[in-house]
Each structure stands twice: as C-alpha cells, then as structure tokens.
C-alpha cells in the first residue's frame, strides 16, 4: 500500500481523537464517581440502576410510613397502659367495696377516688397527639368521649397506611375496641348478695343490666353502660349510696373490659413488633440494594485511575511519535 502524508496524519488525528475521548470519559467517571454516565453506556445496567433506585426510594417511603405508624401506636400503647393502671385501681376499690361493710368515711373517700379515676379515664381516652384524638377513629378532630355523658363520639374507622408492597398496617385503635366490650349473648348469674343479675346486649357496646331478687323474678334495679367510663361513673354513685347489688353486678363487666383492654394492648404490641420487624427487613433490603447499586454504578477507583494513567501514557507517546513523523521529509535532506 502506498502511504501518503494524508494517511499518516489522518491516522494520527483519529488515534488522538479516540485517546482524548477515552481520556475525557475516564476523567468524567472519576469526577462523578460513577461508572455509567448515560443510559447508552450500559442499557441493561441503567435499567437495573433505575429499578434499584425505585425500590430503594419505595423502601425509604415505607420506612417513613412505619415511623409514623410506630409513633402513633407508641402513643396509643402509653395511653392504654396508663388506662390499665387506672383500671386496676378502680377494680381494687370495687373489690374492697363489694361487701358493703365499709364505713361512711371510707365510702366517701372511695366515691371521690372513683370519680377522680373516672376523670382520669376520660382524659386518657381523649388523648390528643399532633392535633388528633387517638381513639376517635376517622373522626380524629372530635373528642373521643363526651366529658359529661361519657358517650363515645368517634367512629369505627381504622386508619391503615402502606408499609410494604401490597401490605398495609392499621395505625390506630378505636375507643370502642379498647374501653368497651361487646356482649355476645345475654346471660344471668347470682351475685354474692343472693340476688340475680341479667346482662343483655344492647345497641353496639351497650350492656343492659337488670338486678332481680333472690327468686330471680322481681326486678329490683336496671341500669346500662357502654364503656368503662360509664361503668366507673355508676360505680362511683353506687359506692356513695352503698348499693351493694350494683357494685357486685359491676364485677363481671370490669373483668370483661379489662380483658378487652389487654387484648387491645396486645394488638398494639403485636403491631409494633411487626412494624419493627418490617422496618428491619426494609433496612436490610435497602442495604443489599445499595450494595448492588454500588457495584453496578460506582466506579472502581483503582482500575479507573490506572486506565487514566494508561491513556495518558499512550497519549504522550502518540504526541512524541507524531512530532517525529511529521518532521520527517525528503525535502529536509535535499540541498
């Protein structure tokens, strides 16, 4: 093949161009610390990088949701365990008052104590966090319990938020699930006083109570309640009047409501632990995604720096060679 200066120069130019290009590229990779600079560099790699990024940001979002849910449930848990303490105190008074043998002074103190505990119930059941009433269901801007009638004013709305792909978690307990119980079927029992008590389910969580005499025929007294606040209120009055039938009739309902409260606490505890597990899983998932992402996207510093050095050396050699080649001409030797 005949070689002309055009060929030599063109080749030099092309070689230099391609060297400069790879030089600039390697430099850019080092500068941005990224192996893939544009989707066309590695299409399937890009696709995976983008998918990983979507997964990581979804995980981050789920973790933020879990944080919100955890904070809500922790508040709920605190309120529930305080209420449980209050409930235990009420039950203690109930048990010491059921014989009806306390003197007037003790009864007065117990009445006042019970009324105080009832108000504590109300204030705990109306716990407000971040402007939301914890136990009102969807009606989070409404006081959960009326402070005079002690009636539940919320609804049964369970708020759920996504905590994983296709999985949601309830973040609240409604008041009617924690502080009331739903009587399944009517039943009757004889109380220590010898009278009979009939418990009949009413609307919702209402329980209608009927006290009959020892022959279980004549109705002596009726009352009804739908939550622990109302029960405590009735108890307080019963203690002040030393109404032993009512006090004894309330023992069963207080046991029931305590069960209900424990089960609500257990539910919250289970949710919290499941959220904690879920959060750990998400963190692990994110970590492993981050690892994959790094190995896919991050530049291998040593290798790239070597690459840069190699390109640099080649480029220098090329410059030196070009200078030599371009200075050679027959014309230099003719004189």
């Amino acid at each position, binding site marked *: 093949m005949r070689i002309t200066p055009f060929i030599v120069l063109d080749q030099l130019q092309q070689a230099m161009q391609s060297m400069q290009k790879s030089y600039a590229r390697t430099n850019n990779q080092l500068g941005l610390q990224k192996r893939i600079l544009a989707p066309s560099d590695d299409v399937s790699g890009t696709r995976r990088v983008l998918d990983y990024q979507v997964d990581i940001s979804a995980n981050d979002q789920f973790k933020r949701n879990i944080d919100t849910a955890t904070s809500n449930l922790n508040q709920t848990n605190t309120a529930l365990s305080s209420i449980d303490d209050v409930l235990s105190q009420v039950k203690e008074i109930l048990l010491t008052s059921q014989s009806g043998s306390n003197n007037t002074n003790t009864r007065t103190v117990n009445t006042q104590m019970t009324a105080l505990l009832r108000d504590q119930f109300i204030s705990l059941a109306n716990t407000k966090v971040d402007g939301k009433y914890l136990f009102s269901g969807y009606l989070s801007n409404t006081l959960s319990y009326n402070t005079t009638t002690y009636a539940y004013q919320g609804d049964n709305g369970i708020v759920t938020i996504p905590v994983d792909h296709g999985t949601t978690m309830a973040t609240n307990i409604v008041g009617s699930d924690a502080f009331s119980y739903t009587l399944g079927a009517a039943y009757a029992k004889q109380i220590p006083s010898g009278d009979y008590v009939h418990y009949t389910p009413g609307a919702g969580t209402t329980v209608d109570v009927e006290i009959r005499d020892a022959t279980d025929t004549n109705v002596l007294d009726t009352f009804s309640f739908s939550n622990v606040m109302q029960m405590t209120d009735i108890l307080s009055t019963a203690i002040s009047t030393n109404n032993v039938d009512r006090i004894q009739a309330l023992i069963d309902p207080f046991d029931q409501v305590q069960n209900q409260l424990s089960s609500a606490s257990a539910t919250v505890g289970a949710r919290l632990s499941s959220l904690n597990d879920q959060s750990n899983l998400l963190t692990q998932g994110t970590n492993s995604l981050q690892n994959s992402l790094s190995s896919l996207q991050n530049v291998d510093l040593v290798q790239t720096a070597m690459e840069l050095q190699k390109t640099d050396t080649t480029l220098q050699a090329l410059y030196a060679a070009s200078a030599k080649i371009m200075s050679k*001409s027959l014309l230099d030797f003719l004189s």
Partner: protein
Amino acid sequence: MSISGLFNIGRSALTANQTALAVTSNNIANANTLGYSREEVVLSVTRPESTASGYLGTGVSAVSIMRSFNRFIQMQLLGQQQNQGRSSAMDQTWGQVEALVNELQDTGLSTSLTDFFSAWNDVASAPESSTARTVLLQKASNLTRAASSIERSIVSTLGNTNSSITDDVKQINAIASQIAKYNTDITAAEAGQSTESANDLRDQRDEKLVELAKLVDYSTYEDPNGSITVTVGMRNLVSGSHVNTLSTTPNADGNPDLSLDGINITQNVQGGDISGLIAARDGIQSTTLTSLRKLVASISQQINSLHSTGFGLDGSTGNDFFNPLQLTTLNNTASATVSTTITNQTALTLDEYTINFTGGNYNVYNKATGALVTSGAYAAAGTTFVLPGISVTISGAVTASDSISVSPLTTAVSNFGVALTDPNSVAAASTAAGVPGDNATASAIAQLTDGAITNLGGSTFSDYYNGIVAAVGASRQATADVLTFDTNVLNQMQMQRDSVSGVSLDDEAANLIRFQRAYQAGAQVIKVADELLQTILNL
C-alpha cells in the same frame, strides 16, 4: 539522422520534462487540497525513424496527464459517506434526547414522580394535616412542570431536527445545481476526446458528490459525454445540466417529508444526514414522545379516577386532581366535519386512532399497532360510533384519501396541570362521614405506585418510565455503535482513496529531482548538438 535530429530529441526532452515538472509542482501545490487526485504525466517515445542501421528513436512526448483515481474506491467511499452521514445525524439527535432523560445524572422525571407519590403517602399518614396537603399540591405541580419541561425539550429537538432537514434540502439543491454546472463544463471540455481529460473539473465534481453523500444517499451513472445523472429516492435529482428541485411537504404528523419531481420519496431515502434526521425524528416521535405522553396521561387518568370518588376536608367530592384528558382531532378531509367527545375518562385506553374511508365504510385503526379497531357503513348525513370512552360523529362527503386522527395523548403533557387549588379539597377520605381521619383514598392513590396499570401494558408507572429511559439509551447505544463502525469503515475507505489519489511530498520531491535532472540532461543534449554543429561549421 541529422544533427538537427539531435536538437529535436533534446527539445522534446526539455518540453516533456518541463510538463512533468509542472504536473509535479501542481501536485505539491495541491498536497492539502481536499478531494484532489494526484496527477501523473504519461511519457511516451515519439515515432522512431527508420535508418539503414535500424529504427532510431526521435525523443519523448508527454502524451497525457492522468489522474490517479480509482472509480471503485470512490463509489465505495461515497456509499460509506452516506452511511456515516445517516448514523452521525441519528447519533446526534438521539444524544440530545438521551440527555433529557439521563436519570443517571439526575435529570428526568424519576425524582419528581417519587416525590409526588411520597407526598400522597404523607397525606395518607396524616390526612388531617393541611401541611401534608399543601406539600402534595406543590409536589404535584413540580411533577407537571418536570413532565412539561421534558416534553418541551423533546418537541423542540424535533423542531430543530425538522429545521435541519429543511436546511439539508436547501444544501442538497445548491450542490445539485453545482453538479449540473460541472456536468456542462466537463461535457464541453471533453467534447471530441476519447479520454477523461478534464481532471480538475472532475476532481471538483467528485468533491461535490462527496459533500452530497454526507447529506443524502443517491446513485449515479455517467453518460458517454462525461456528464453524470444523480438519482435520489429513485427520482432524478440531476440529469445533465437539468436539476429537479428537492422540496418538503408536511406529512400527517405535520413533519416535513421529502418530495422530488412531485413524488414523496421519504421512504426511499435511506442514507445521509437527512435520512438519519428523519429516522431519528420519527423514532423519537413515535416511541419516546408518545410513551412519555402515555405515562403522563395514565398518571392523570388513574389519580383522577380514584380522587373523584374521595372526599376532601371541606366535604367536596367528585373533583379531578389533575386536569382531565382532552382529545385532539386532526381532520385531513376536504369537506367532512368531525366532532369527538370523551364520554368516560376512566374507560379511555389511551390509544390513538386513525380513521380511513373505503367503499362507503369507515375503518378505525389503532395508530400504534395498525390493528383495525372497528368499522361500519358511513352515512354522509352523520355517522356516530363509539371507541372506548370516546364518541365520534362524522358528517359530510369523504374520499378514500381522507384521514382523520383522534388522540387523547397529543395534549396530555401540555395540558397536564393540577386542577385543585385548595389543599382542603384533596380527597383523602373514601366517605363523607370519614372526614377528616379517613385516609383510604389517599392510601389507595399512594399504592398506585405498586399497581399494574392496564393502559401501560401492565407496568407500574416507574417501570414504564424506566422502560422509556432504557429504550432511549438502547437507541442511542445502537446509533453510537453504528456510528463508530461507519466512521471506522469510512476512515479505511478514505485511507484507500488517499493511498491511490493522495499526494506524497516525498514522491513529489523525488520526482522534482528526477525531472529536473532529465531537463538538465536534455539541455546538455542540445549543448552537445550545438557543439557538433559548431565543429561542422568550423571545418
């Protein structure tokens, strides 16, 4: 042979070598001229004289000046120039679009899409909070801005591509008339000669052909009189001294198509810058742009569909979150009138339709797949038919060449805006009674990110978007690979051409000495002949 014969031989040596020196000097002078082919003098012995002792030479003559030119290499070079022109244009255009969705350097839609759904999650976590709602509206308008900005840039890239196509057409026409001019000149210069002697004119015409090859693919053939015919897309562009002007006509999408001699030749142009521009333009329009619009249309459709069933803090319901989709109708008929309405936003399949008329029937095709969607008898008095979510009424006379296109996507991005202004109208609750704590609607919208969207072929929003990015990357990668290949081949061809036609200064320097020495020797011959003659005269 007489002594004067010696003079003649010496003179012929001087003339021939002087010509050779002139050609060598011209080669040296044009060593850096693009497209110049090295020339050589063809020397030949003159007719010998018959003498008693045999034939005796009578000197030398420069019979012709030949271009060192290989037509085969030149044709290959032109063909490769056309390939390289095409791939270079495609690479550049796709490169611009790739930069718009380069998620690896954090440009594109991904962040604002994630932020938007993240804001929905926050509303679901705190449906009572007006802060979360305000942030949501903010993120939503960020999303619309990001989408519009990408669309605007793609549309403007397409617009620039169309301008480049128009510029290429102008340049092609200018080169065509120059080639026609060279045809005339070469025909005149070579008239009556049996060899190709108009070397420099041919070099210049060849250089114009190289320029033309960068722009468009063509084929040529040479007439016996030396003029060439250039055909583009199977129509004559240049024929002798005549030029047919290449022009552009807008196609159904409003983009310029190429037309030569009254015929649309766009499909037949497969090489050169202009074909690369057209291919990239059509590719970007039918894939990237349409997919982006479909994604946005689908986001707005899905969210509106859920949002309008929910209830805001202010008790409002039935509100669209984003502006509802609109139809764009392109009516390419002479006398028909078309009216289209969206009867059900949710039922829209986000397909674009083309309506044609044949034999008294209307036929509706899916523009993307070409599949027949529906057809029926057409009555000029007024024909109404229903497509998913769309009602179309056409009336008036139609012809077989008429076409109507209906698209819910054309304005999907330009019209993409947040319809709500009041944060309290954001419908987080699923029932009126559930306000304010009910987050079921917000939660359902937040979970749309995981949902397979039927109108996006069962992908999630992120999947679909990542698919767009990957598709752009793949297109760019393919064009870049082809460009590298084409450039390497072109360089090889160029090298072969230079090997044959290029000027080597070393060669020319040697020739310079060679012809100079021969010239000096020729002068010496004349001197000797003169001395011989003097000897005779002195007798």
